[in-house]
């Protein structure tokens, strides 16, 4: 639902990447190789720019905060530790909420929930999307038809509303949020992988591998998938960014997991105190913006390292 603009830019089959397999013979000297290998070819799929590194740093930072939440949080996020609605100070770095609970601690645990949802969704989406997409791209046929029809349908299914309906029927909980987000996301990832595989299927190096007697599986895994990887990572990063925003939105509506503090839930607590406690509004949203921008920067950096399309 949220990922359409950026996704549409990369969902088209790439017009052909420069062959990654440089001729093995005659052997070039190091100096020659340095001249011959264009910058673009060598950095293909890698993060090279300063903004890309910054994005990577932000994403890693969030992972660390999530992993070390118990150590990093100065207080129990559910227990009042100070005066209510205290502004940010040395004692309460991000202030306290209306019950005197430390916002920084809430934020740290909120980040943990965000990262948990993102990781779980990724854990489902990545194997499913890459597996089906690669199979459909390499084999074609009925599986390919089915995937394309499915993705057309999935594109019109309003994901956010589906999530709300699931919560209305099954009650709130992290497991169903993860399932809804994952099941509505993998198809479009599979489409990207499929397009990438299709773009290299008839290339010479694949033919060469076939002539050498490589098995279909080996060709797919060792020769074709590596080509699909950068574009997959780009789309995956954007997808996770959207997943984070949807999860936060559900939390903001009070439909997140009642047993987990989420950034969206923290932001919703600010609604009644907008005039008196700006910090309740500012910090949870700022954390969300930071991680989503981080993911976008990583995606942009990898996308820019890919050969231009058209």
């Amino acid at each position, binding site marked *: 639902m949220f990922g359409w*603009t950026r996704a549409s*830019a990369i969902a088209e089959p790439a017009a052909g990447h420069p062959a990654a397999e440089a001729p093995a013979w005659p052997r070039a000297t190091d100096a020659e190789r340095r001249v011959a290998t264009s910058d673009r070819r060598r950095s293909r799929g890698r993060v090279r720019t300063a903004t890309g590194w910054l994005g990577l740093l932000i994403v890693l930072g969030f992972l660390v905060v999530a992993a070390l939440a118990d150590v990093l949080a100065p207080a129990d996020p559910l227990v009042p530790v100070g005066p209510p609605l205290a502004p940010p100070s040395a004692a309460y770095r991000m202030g306290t909420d209306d019950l005197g609970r430390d916002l920084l601690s809430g934020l740290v645990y909120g980040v943990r929930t965000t990262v948990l949802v993102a990781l779980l969704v990724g854990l489902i989406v990545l194997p499913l999307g890459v597996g089906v997409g690669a199979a459909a791209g390499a084999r074609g046929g009925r599986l390919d038809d089915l995937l394309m029809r499915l993705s057309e*349908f999935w594109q019109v*299914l309003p994901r956010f509303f589906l999530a709300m309906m699931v919560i209305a029927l099954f009650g709130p909980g992290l497991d169903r949020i993860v399932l809804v987000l994952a099941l509505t996301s993998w198809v479009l990832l599979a489409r990207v992988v499929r397009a990438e595989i299709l773009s290299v299927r008839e290339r010479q190096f694949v033919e060469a591998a076939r002539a050498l007697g490589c098995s279909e599986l080996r060709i797919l895994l060792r020769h074709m998938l590596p080509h699909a990887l950068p574009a997959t990572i780009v789309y995956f990063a954007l997808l996770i960014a959207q997943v984070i*925003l949807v999860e936060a939105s559900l939390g903001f*509506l009070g439909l997140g997991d009642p047993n987990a503090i989420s950034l969206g839930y923290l932001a919703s607590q600010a609604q009644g105190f907008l*005039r008196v406690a700006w910090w309740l*509004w500012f910090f949870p949203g700022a954390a969300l913006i930071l991680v989503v921008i981080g993911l976008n920067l990583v995606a942009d950096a990898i996308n820019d390292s890919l050969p231009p399309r058209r």
Partner: protein
Amino acid sequence: MTGRYLAWRLLQVPLAVSGILLVSFLLIHLAPGDPVVALAGEHGDAAYYAEMRAKFGLDRSLAEQLGVFVANVARLDLGVSYVLGRPALDVVLERLPATLLLTGSALVVSTLIGIALGVVAASHAGRGPDVAINLAALTLLATPAFWLAQLALLALALHAGWFPIGGMTDPRSSATGLGAIADVARHLLLPMAVLAAGEVAAIARLTRIGLLDELRQDYVRTARAKGLPESRVLTRHALPLAMLPVLTVIGGRVGHLLSGAVLVEMVFGWPGIGRLLLSSVQARDIPVVLGIFLVVGLSVVFANVMTDLAYVRLDPRIRYR
């Protein structure tokens, strides 16, 4: 050929609609809780349960139940709202105009401003305005709608006092005619702007990329070579073609706007289906939730078909297969 495309595209509508119906039916069926136990209480005897099951058709096969469900939806009968005791569809349709006003105006405004900013960015590619617009677009795309809504409410309504802090009309106002319209417009401005902001960013990026692509084409060089002023090359030659990708995503934007509307309606107290959906989800008022899901699903399908058809009309190069 266009005729064939048209037929093929229209054939997809019933497919998509049945997909949406099937998903909703299965979800309702899989939901925990036995409706018979809910109706008859936990301590009824087996014979009574069986009788109730037969009465409501719950003893029939899943396929038969699906048939009944689809027939009911086709007759526009979604059941009665548990909370309000009125037909669920009536409840939804009552609230729909407010949401249509909000999302419709946001769609129009974001398209116009987004295209304008995209043109500015593309014509200054790599320089100050382009960098600024790109940076702003990236930030806006990363900003949760509710955060932006609260910021607008805090800064422009609560502190500056330029806008009303919520609702759709002033309850004290007894104005009619033009006065009433002005009143709604005043309340509409802020939520609409917040809802449009993210879309502006998306459209500006899309326009910029499309325009930069077109500006590399031969016909642009020809136009420049024959001495046309740059502004004319941009707006008359390149822009119409660059608009095509912007047009294709309108279908997707409708779904996006409607979900954004849920959040914006909540922050600004806008009386649309978003707020209705939230209260219905909280109250587990399934008929109303289902009604909104179907209305939103059908709107997105409809918007997608309309954009595709418009696309075929506008771009003579497109011929389906």
